[in-house]
């Protein structure tokens, strides 16, 4: 295990960084908020960690932590600003926010290193730390998907009006989601800067939006597990696809398009429905008509339970 880990350290690192970035888009999506602010937070975290490490030589936990705090505050303020927007308009506004930060980085002068970026952010961050941080984050998110809080978030996504009528503060859930998304994105960006010891405007561009979104859609948008599946697939795909050589981007594009058309719930959704079908087939005939997980009555009960 340890030998495998050390020989694949770079791949493992980029898988986990991609996972955190994907989660920063997936968490808002779970609450029905179509926000790419996580990509902007990635930029904030990446630059904050690099600047702190190069200028002040602080420990990696502080360097990343500063970025996480700034991005979480920025996420809260952004949530207040865009409170009126929803759907595609919200997506557009947050893409604009993320890409604007890229231009700010180019124009940041000495602080951000301009178009060439920053080099030499050498720290003591190891693969083990990254694994631990990602593990804790995933655990917390997995817990948040269960229980009353998880059901409240589901209600906000499925029907905001109904959620309000059940006494759920939709605005507060949305603001929280923006804060969490900001913290996750900044954590991913900060770790990436310190692992690669460098950050530049090219590394925080539009392609991050594309990468994060494709991971979630192919993996499955409604759970952290979907983002994990997507992160593993798209980080390891290039090594698998070496035999197609230069045509790799073409294969990549076809896979994403096929997934979007034929697997709207992602691989996770396909696996879940296959599991449910298999379990149903195993039941005796008289049990088949019994209420299943998707039963409206149980869904209603879950919504009512979510009332604080």
């Amino acid at each position, binding site marked *: 295990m340890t030998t495998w880990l050390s020989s694949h350290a770079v791949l493992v690192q980029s898988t986990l960084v991609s996972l955190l970035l994907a989660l920063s888009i997936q968490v808002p999506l779970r609450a029905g908020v179509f926000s790419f602010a996580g990509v902007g937070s990635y930029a904030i975290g990446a630059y904050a960690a690099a600047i702190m490490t190069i200028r002040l030589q602080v420990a990696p936990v502080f360097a990343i932590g500063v970025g996480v705090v700034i991005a979480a505050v920025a996420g809260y303020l952004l949530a207040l600003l865009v409170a009126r927007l929803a759907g595609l308009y919200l997506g*557009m506004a947050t893409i*604009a*926010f993320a890409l*604007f930060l890229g231009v700010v980085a180019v124009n940041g002068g000495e602080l951000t290193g301009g178009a060439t970026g920053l080099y030499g952010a050498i720290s003591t961050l190891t693969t083990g730390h990254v694994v631990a941080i990602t593990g804790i984050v995933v655990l917390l998110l997995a817990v948040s998907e269960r229980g009353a809080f998880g059901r409240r978030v589901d209600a906000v996504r499925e029907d905001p009006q109904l959620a309000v009528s059940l006494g759920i503060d939709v605005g507060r859930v949305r603001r929280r989601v923006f804060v969490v998304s900001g913290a996750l994105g900044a954590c991913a960006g900060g770790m990436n800067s310190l692992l690669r010891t460098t950050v530049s405007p090219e590394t925080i561009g*539009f392609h991050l939006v594309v990468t994060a979104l494709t991971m979630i859609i192919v993996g499955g948008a409604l759970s952290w597990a979907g983002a994990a599946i997507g992160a593993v697939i798209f980080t390891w795909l290039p090594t698998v696809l070496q035999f197609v050589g*230069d045509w790799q981007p073409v294969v990549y594009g076809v896979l994403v*398009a096929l997934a979007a058309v034929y697997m*709207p719930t992602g691989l996770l959704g396909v696996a879940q429905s296959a599991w449910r079908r298999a379990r149903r087939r195993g039941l005796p005939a008289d049990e088949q008509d019994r209420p299943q997980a998707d039963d409206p009555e149980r869904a209603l009960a879950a919504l009512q339970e979510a009332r604080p």
Partner: protein
Amino acid sequence: MAQDVLNALTLGSLYLLFALGMSLAWGTIGVLNFAHGSIFMFSAFGAHLAVQAVPLPMPAMIAIGVGIGAVLSLAVQVLAFEPIQRRAADAHTAQLQIIVAGIGIAGIPLAVAQYVTRSVPFGYSAGTFEVTVHDLGPVRVTDVQVVILVAALGIAGLIAWWLRAARAGLALRAIGVDAEVAAMMGVDRRRLALLTMAVAGGLAGLAGVLLTYHLGSIAPETGDAFLLKAFAAIILGGVGSIAGVVIGAMVLAGIETLVLVTTSGTWAPAIAFGVLFAMLLVRPRGLLGRMEVRRT
């Protein structure tokens, strides 16, 4: 000064040609095509391949570009967006899936063009068309600029008139208000959607060929930059409004030119994002957009 205004108008006209079809498709049939920039670039690239084989005049090049754009756009609609709209549970999930499918598809023509050109900018120097420059008092105008201005404003006027006066235009606007009721009234949604996508793709192709003539050469990555600017132009003017896109494209080009002329220009790429963000905060439906009718 007059020269700057002319340059801004030319740039605005190119944005307009590009964004017009996108805005129409978004505002009526609910398709926000992220592959639009790729179609735009690949049409110009296809015309480049044709001119490498046979020295062609400008009208033939434009016809090739428009043709490739329309065919690609139709292919995307039939192969990806139609199945999504047929299978999706509701309009909101369909929109999200259409965006992701568009992003995936956009990578395909881009990768092909990058592979063939090795990411070197391509142009039409092998063609028979020579740019001539006319001196009109304080300004110098090329005949390419004249073609761009006339095409953009002429086509925008034509589409605005068609939407207002023709029966099919009325039907398309009806889909934009309520697709299901429109279908009940006998509107053929599929045929109009295909027509809209073909027109949008054709206009993207036209914009691609004209941009290449205007600049001399373009890189395969130009499509992405245009896509983001088109979003800003559309949001600024109001989704689905033709007059809105005209104003949005011209205002965006005007501000960009102003910043390029008065500063060192490093902030120019941020203008589109800043304008987009500010507009969404102040007036999300744009300058001329109507309130979205929503019934739950």
